C-alpha cells in the first residue's frame, strides 16, 4: 500500500527533497519534537536563519514531514511500503534511508501518542476489595451480614476517579458468573470468525 498525499502536502515536502541530507535529519528531529510537544515557532526562526531561508517554508516542511510520519503510522505502513512511498515522492536513496530510519525509530512512540489522543471511555484502572461482616448498627444489633467492599479506580481522559461499592455474596457470585460468560464469549466461534476476518 502506498501513501497517497494531496498536492499541497507534496509541494510542502519539495523543500526537503531539494535540500541537504543533514537538513532532512535535523528536520526529522524537529518534526518529532512537534509530535511530542507541539509546535515551537522559535525553532523555525533559528533554523530558517541558519539555512538562509524563509521561516514559512521551514515551518511547512517540518509540518509536512510530521504529517507524513503520522499518516504512515496511522496506516501502519510496512518498511517496504514506506520506502516505496518516499521514493514515489521523489526523495533520493540516501534521504530515503534517513526517512526510513526516522520512521522505524519513532513509529512506536507516535502510535502511543496517537492512541492517547483517541476518544476515551472511562476505563478500568484498579480494583481493591475486602471482606467485611456487619455485626451491629445503631438501629439493629446482633446481625451477621457479610459484605464485600470494593474500591473501583477508573480513569477518563487522565481524570482518575474512585468509587466505593459493596455487594453481598449472592450478588458477587452472580456478578462473577456474568463476567465469566462475557470472557467466554470472546472465544466463541462467532467472535473468532469476526476477528479473523477483520484481521485479514
Amino acid at each position, binding site marked *: 500500500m502506498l501513501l497517497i498525499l494531496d498536492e499541497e502536502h507534496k509541494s510542502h515536502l519539495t523543500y526537503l527533497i531539494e535540500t541537504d541530507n543533514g537538513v532532512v535529519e535535523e528536520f526529522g528531529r524537529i518534526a518529532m519534537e512537534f509530535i511530542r510537544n507541539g509546535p515551537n515557532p522559535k525553532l523555525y526562526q533559528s533554523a530558517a536563519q541558519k539555512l538562509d531561508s524563509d521561516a514559512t517554508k521551514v515551518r511547512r516542511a517540518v509540518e509536512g514531514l510530521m504529517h507524513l510520519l503520522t499518516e504512515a*503510522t*496511522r*496506516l*501502519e505502513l510496512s518498511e517496504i511500503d514506506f520506502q516505496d512511498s518516499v521514493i514515489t515522492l521523489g526523495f533520493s536513496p540516501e534521504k530515503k534511508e534517513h526517512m526510513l530510519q526516522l520512521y522505524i525509530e519513532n513509529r512506536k512512540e507516535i*502510535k502511543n501518542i*496517537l*492512541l492517547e*489522543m*483517541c*476518544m476515551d*471511555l*472511562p*476505563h*478500568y484502572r484498579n*480494583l481493591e*476489595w475486602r*471482606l467485611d*461482616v456487619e*455485626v451491629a*448498627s*445503631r*438501629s*439493629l*444489633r*446482633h*446481625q*451477621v*451480614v*457479610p459484605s464485600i*467492599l*470494593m474500591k*473501583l479506580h*477508573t480513569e477518563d481522559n487522565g481524570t482518575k476517579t474512585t*468509587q*466505593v*461499592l*459493596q*455487594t*453481598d*455474596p*449472592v*450478588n*458477587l*457470585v*452472580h*456478578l*462473577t*458468573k*456474568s*463476567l*465469566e460468560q*462475557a*470472557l467466554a*464469549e*470472546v472465544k466463541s466461534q462467532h*467472535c473468532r470468525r*469476526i*476477528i479473523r476476518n*477483520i*484481521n485479514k
Partner: protein
Amino acid sequence: MELSTEVLQSLQLAGDAASVPDKCFSPLVTRVLKDCSSASAGPRAIASKPSVTGKPLPGLNAGIFKQVYAALYTMVLEASKHDLDHSNFRHVMLRGRTLLFLAEVKGHLRSPEVDVQKPCNRNISSAVLEECKYTPDRIEVFAKAFEAAKPQLRASLSDVGSQFPHIVDVDWRLDYYIKNNHLDKVNEPTYLVTLKTEEGDGQGTKDIQFACSIEQLQVIKKPSVPGISSLTEDGMTSFLVVLFFRRLYAPLIGSRYH
C-alpha cells in the same frame, strides 16, 4: 434493652385491663406491629395522617391509646433492634415492672435513667408478673404477634443507616475496536461493563460504566487471596460461600449473647 420510666409506666398501663380492655389488646398489638413493619407508615404517617393511622381503636380512650401506642411502639422497636425472642420478651415485660418499682423506691435519690440501666434480674417471681398486670394471655398474644412480625421488622431496621452503593447486577457488552480517527488499525476486543447499584433509598438503580480489556476483566473477576477465591470459582460456588461464611460466623455467634 433499656426503656425509660415514662415508657415503662405506659407499658404498665397497656397491661392494665381497666385502661385497655381485653378485647382491645390484640387489635392494639396488631396495629402497632403493622405500623412498625411498614417503614413508610411509621410515626411519620401517623403524624401526617392522624385520621387514618392514628385513629384510636373503638372502645379505647384517645389519650390512653396515644400513650400505650407510643410505649408499645418503642418497645417493639427496641426488642427488634436487640433481636429478643419469646423468652427474652417475657423477661423484659416482667423486668419492666421491676425496674419501674426500683425507680419508684429510690425516688429522687437518683435519676430514673441510672436506675433503668440496672442489669436485668432474670429470677422474677410470679408475684411480679401479677403486679405487672400483664396476664399470661396478654404476654402470649404479644409474644406470638411479635415473633411473626420480627423478621420483617429487622429487615426494615437493617435498611436504616448508611451503606455504600450496593451492586445488584451487571451488564456487559463486547466490542471489537477496529479503528478511530487517529489510527487505522487498533484491533482489540474491549468490554464495556455497567454495574447496576442500589443506594438503599428506594430510588432505583444507578449505573457505573467503564471499559476494560480482556486481561483487566480477568483480574476483576478473580480476587487472588486464598479463601475468597473460592467465592468466584465455578460449580460449587454457592456451597463454598456458605461454608466459608459459616466458618466466619462461628466465633461471632458464640459471643452473640455475651
